[in-house]
């Protein structure tokens, strides 16, 4: 080192670096609070998660319900837990789009020039986005209840279903973050995300029982982890087997987080 400098100003020296994990949590929470403030100031960005569940329920229950289940009420019970999973998954695609356009604006340059972990802005954004899932679920269950949906298993297990879907969506968000970091344009992020989300959400027993499907599609549905998430949500909200689907959902969540969060942070680090 050939160059030296006068000691840092007292104010900076006084902020002794606290232990790393603790700082990461504190910085991430501060950035999550930033996301929430932004959402509060521009509530219109919650329009999609507010309207989409309502539209889906109307389309599927009233358009198809009679034909598929014979009764719209029976179909509403069958469909609503699955729509909750689908809505949350669709909602998780917004974060990649938002981060992608945020990074272009320069605020992230500021974050990068601060002595905080590279992952903090991403973790903060993902945490702040939880509000989207909560809004989507509240709207969906509120609307469904108005139409006659009932938790067959009691409200507590119904709430547990919501929490499980929340955990899964939170972990799934990291795939969207990764796409947001790898793709140049926000519009492309949206397109790619939906290309992935459609087969994942519709390629399940969401709308009809698996055994009514052709063999090749049955194979995909059984392979698709989202089927397990929907089964777990149904089991918790309506009754039925839950141990297997819940275990599978949690394992998949953990897997998604473990694989895609580090990849997303790495992609963010490399993006200039």
């Amino acid at each position, binding site marked *: *080192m*050939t*160059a*030296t*400098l*006068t000691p*840092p*100003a007292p*104010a*900076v020296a006084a*902020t002794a*670096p*606290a232990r790393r994990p603790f*700082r990461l949590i*504190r*910085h991430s929470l*501060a*950035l999550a609070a*930033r996301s929430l*403030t*932004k959402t509060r*100031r*521009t509530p219109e960005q919650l329009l999609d998660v507010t309207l989409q569940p309502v539209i889906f329920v109307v389309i599927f229950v009233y358009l198809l319900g009679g034909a598929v289940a014979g009764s719209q009420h029976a179909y509403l019970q069958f469909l609503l837990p699955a729509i909750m999973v689908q809505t949350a998954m669709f909602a998780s695609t917004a974060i990649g789009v938002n981060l992608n356009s945020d990074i272009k*604006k*320069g*605020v992230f*340059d*500021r*974050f*990068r*020039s*601060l*002595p*905080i972990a590279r992952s*903090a802005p991403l973790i903060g954004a993902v945490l702040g986005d939880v509000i989207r899932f909560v809004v989507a679920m509240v709207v969906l269950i509120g609307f469904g209840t108005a139409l006659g949906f009932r938790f067959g298993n009691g409200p507590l297990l119904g709430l547990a279903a919501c929490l499980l879907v929340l955990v899964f969506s939170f972990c799934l968000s990291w795939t969207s973050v990764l796409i947001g970091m790898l793709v140049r344009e926000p519009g492309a992020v949206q397109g790619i995300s939906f290309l992935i989300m459609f087969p994942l959400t519709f390629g399940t027993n969401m709308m009809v029982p698996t055994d009514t499907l052709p063999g090749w599609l049955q194979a995909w549905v059984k392979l698709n982890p989202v089927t397990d998430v929907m089964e777990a949500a149904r089991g918790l909200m309506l009754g039925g087997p839950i141990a297997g689907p819940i275990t599978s959902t949690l394992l998949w969540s953990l897997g998604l987080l473990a694989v895609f969060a580090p990849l997303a942070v790495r992609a963010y680090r490399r993006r*200039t």
Partner: protein
Amino acid sequence: MTYAFQAEGLVKRYGKTIALDGVDLAARPGTVLGVLGPNGAGKTTAVRVLATLLRPDAGRAVVGGYDVVRDADQVRRRIGLTGQYASVDDDLTGTENLLLIGRLMDLRTADARVRAAELLARFDLTEAAGRPARTYSGGMRRRLDLAASLVGRPDVIYLDEPTTGLDPAKRDDVWNMVRALVADGTTVLLTTQYLEEADALADEITVMDHGRVIAHDTPADLKRIVGGQTIAARPADPARLGDTGQILAAVSGHQPESPSRGVLTVPVPDDTAFTEAVRRLAAAGITMTELSLRLPSLDEVFLTLTGHGADDRQEAGV
């Protein structure tokens, strides 16, 4: 020699484009380094390396004794960055913007509040403190941006074209802020496209072109190299052009040129020649519609230093 920051042999390539081709930059503590160059010269890339936003492909840079790659976290504790485009959060208020940075700089909440209020007052934003930044004017956003980069009391601050797109009055505001920073002992790296700005603020100027340093000197010496200042004169009556030319030739010792119809320009060594020209023109009873003393434009600087203008980049090739 002690430097607040020092970059040696920085190289950065993007595919086949070479953004930095062995760049050296350095400034002593408490001084201003002006980095002068046209768009695409590599100024911003160099700043981004010094601000730990980009890894150089070769060479190294040290800020406050810490390597920008190996000790990036230590460097980030000591720097402030204000980009060409104000990087403030539009949805947050002025206060919220500064509080967020304070929290991320590990200030205690109470200290962050004090610091935010102090900086808002200093940059004349107290009244607008509670409004979202999207309602701010361009000048206010720049000031908030600058305030944000000062939250952590940086030793070194990078100002990347801080006056681009500002009107002259706002530009003077920024200049005064830079002078105040230096008075506090901060080291400043300022990139600019204007020799006038570098001349007004910098202790030393590095001129960049095509990712290389093509000159490094004090403003006085640089101006000497590029031919000091120029008088531009436009007599009200075109018939007096000849008389005007004689006077300008007499005070400068150079034959005036006419870059456009009715205008004469002549290089002068210092501003006493200008005073003398004004006196003689008045004595000869020649009315002027334009009479100015100016520094060479960036284009003229480049013409002198490289033999090609700042705008002939494509034709000149790399």
